[in-house]
């Protein structure tokens, strides 16, 4: 990947023609405050194409019943489609086996599942968990809760001013008490793509498993869990053109088998008496109760859509958007970009001199430009860079160069109001 700094407002070229894909997305045709919607809050949640919406509708109209429970035809159809979605997810991240795919409510629940199932089983008094300085709160708070309960402690990998992890410091954090590395693959606040493959190899040399928070990676790049060799990988459907309420936790089968169930209930058991319960096999051991069937099936359709567009093309187009937008933003006086990693996803966090990000967000919204303003659930990142909050524009493959221009024009307007 080239450094966006090297290319200054290069003329837009793209491997993907977003204008041809945009009609697939009903919501992208809408207007906000009388202006065409320019949706640049994809890191918070992405939009859904019609084919994916229709998959949800088709399920509800023709296929719905409970799964794994009955012999009737509808239940068989629902079960088949639900398990087919699991296979789609398996292929999407290149897991070895379908039983390594656990459907969750999202990244947050996936991480909490690992905290309960792995953390409670293997992390004790005096043990250490390594996190990075750029974690989302969802990959900090569960570990803090565990540390409090167990008397374990967190060690934090520091980062430099560009928002890149200091790998030398990382290596120094390992000791015989290290039990887990929990690391964000792509930072939602900075856009940094962490060199996770090498970091996982380093952890494995110490015999330490690694959980990756992939919430911001799966929508934007090809993820191969076997190539990465991560032990756990958590991600959310709603950030990759799927619905809310569904996500995936991948875990290596060997590890998942050793773990305790996360929740107890129906579906996760083989037999129950008041004396003893025998847990079901993977992945059902971790899917207590009726799962979000419609959401899982719809997520499968979202993965099919992304695969059809092509993850490589998506990554290329987003990189082109990133370097174009970075070049434009750098030219505006008073704009300070937060996060300048060499390897970066299409996320632009910035501050405007003398203008609070919240005000910038409101004024951009009045221009139809949707960005996020705030701490992005990563307050330690804000503290590291000494800002209370940033404005963040985050791109998806359906964003266009013209939308970058709308953002830039909007920022000029914001500055004018506060001039």
């Amino acid at each position, binding site marked *: 990947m080239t450094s966006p700094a090297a290319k200054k407002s290069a003329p837009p070229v793209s491997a993907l023609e977003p204008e041809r894909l945009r009609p697939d997305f009903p919501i992208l045709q809408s207007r906000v*405050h*009388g202006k065409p919607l320019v949706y640049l809050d994809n890191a918070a949640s992405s939009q859904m194409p019609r084919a994916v919406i229709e998959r949800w509708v088709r399920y509800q109209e023709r296929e719905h019943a409970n799964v794994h429970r009955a012999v009737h035809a509808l239940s068989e159809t629902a079960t088949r489609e639900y398990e087919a979605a699991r296979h789609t997810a398996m292929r999407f991240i290149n897991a070895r086996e379908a039983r390594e795919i656990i459907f969750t409510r999202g990244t947050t629940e996936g991480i909490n599942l690992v905290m309960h199932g792995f953390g409670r089983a293997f992390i004790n008094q005096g043990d250490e968990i390594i996190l990075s300085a750029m974690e989302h709160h969802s990959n900090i708070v569960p570990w803090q809760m565990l540390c409090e309960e167990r008397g374990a402690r967190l060690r934090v990998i520091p980062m430099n001013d560009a928002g890149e992890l200091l790998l030398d410091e990382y290596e120094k954090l390992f000791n015989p008490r290290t039990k887990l590395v929990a690391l964000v693959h792509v930072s939602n606040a900075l856009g940094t793509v962490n060199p996770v493959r090498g970091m996982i190899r380093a952890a494995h040399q110490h015999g330490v498993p690694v959980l990756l928070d992939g919430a911001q990676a799966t929508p934007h790049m090809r993820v191969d869990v076997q190539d990465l060799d991560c032990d756990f990988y958590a991600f959310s459907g709603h950030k990759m053109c799927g619905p809310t309420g569904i996500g995936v936790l991948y875990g290596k089968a060997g590890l998942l088998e050793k773990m305790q169930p996360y929740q107890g209930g129906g579906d996760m058991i083989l037999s129950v008496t008041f004396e003893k319960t025998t847990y079901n096999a993977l992945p059902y051991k971790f899917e207590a109760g009726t799962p979000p069937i419609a959401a899982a099936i719809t997520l499968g359709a979202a993965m099919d859509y992304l695969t059809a567009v092509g993850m490589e093309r998506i990554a290329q187009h987003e990189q082109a958007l990133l370097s174009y937008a970075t070049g434009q933003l750098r030219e505006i006086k008073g704009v300070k970009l937060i996060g300048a990693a060499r390897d970066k996803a299409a996320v632009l966090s910035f501050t405007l001199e003398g*203008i*609070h*990000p*919240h*005000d910038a967000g*409101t*004024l951009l919204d*009045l221009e139809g430009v949707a960005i996020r*303003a*705030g*701490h992005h659930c990563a*307050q330690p990142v*804000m503290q590291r860079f000494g800002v*209370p*909050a940033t404005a963040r524009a985050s791109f998806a493959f359906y964003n266009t160069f013209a939308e970058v221009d709308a953002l830039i024009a909007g920022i000029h*307007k914001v500055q004018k*109001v*506060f001039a």
Partner: protein
Amino acid sequence: MTDARQLYQEVILDHNKKPRNYGVLADANRSAEGHNPLCGDHISLSLRVEHDAIRDIAFQGETCAICKASASMMTVAVKGKNVGDAGSLIQEFRDMATGKLDTQTQAHHLGRLNVFAGVRELPTRVKCAVLPWHTLNAAFHNQPSATTESGEF
């Protein structure tokens, strides 16, 4: 439809740039912190209340323009008032910001604070405008802190 100028009126921009009563009172006898967990913004308020009258008041905090101007104008409005009158103003301000009080048609004592009426169209910004008032209310009731997520607005 809200437009930028209607929301960010000159008075608001002015108070944002040059906040009045900014700082911390050395001889305060009431104080409270206000938090907006949605954006991480935070203000602190200190007051000196004597015989039920607000003798002095100051605020501090790096916040958005709406919140800062609201805090600044609030300190100007309540300084010298007695606690009861300030309490009614808190209620009127909240009602205006949430649309319960229509300042065009209903009687009120808000005066220039009426410039914040525009926020009612933008639910997320209502919290920014109301946070200082919420914090003032907490200080009156000897609560150490207030957040935008608690209490009715």
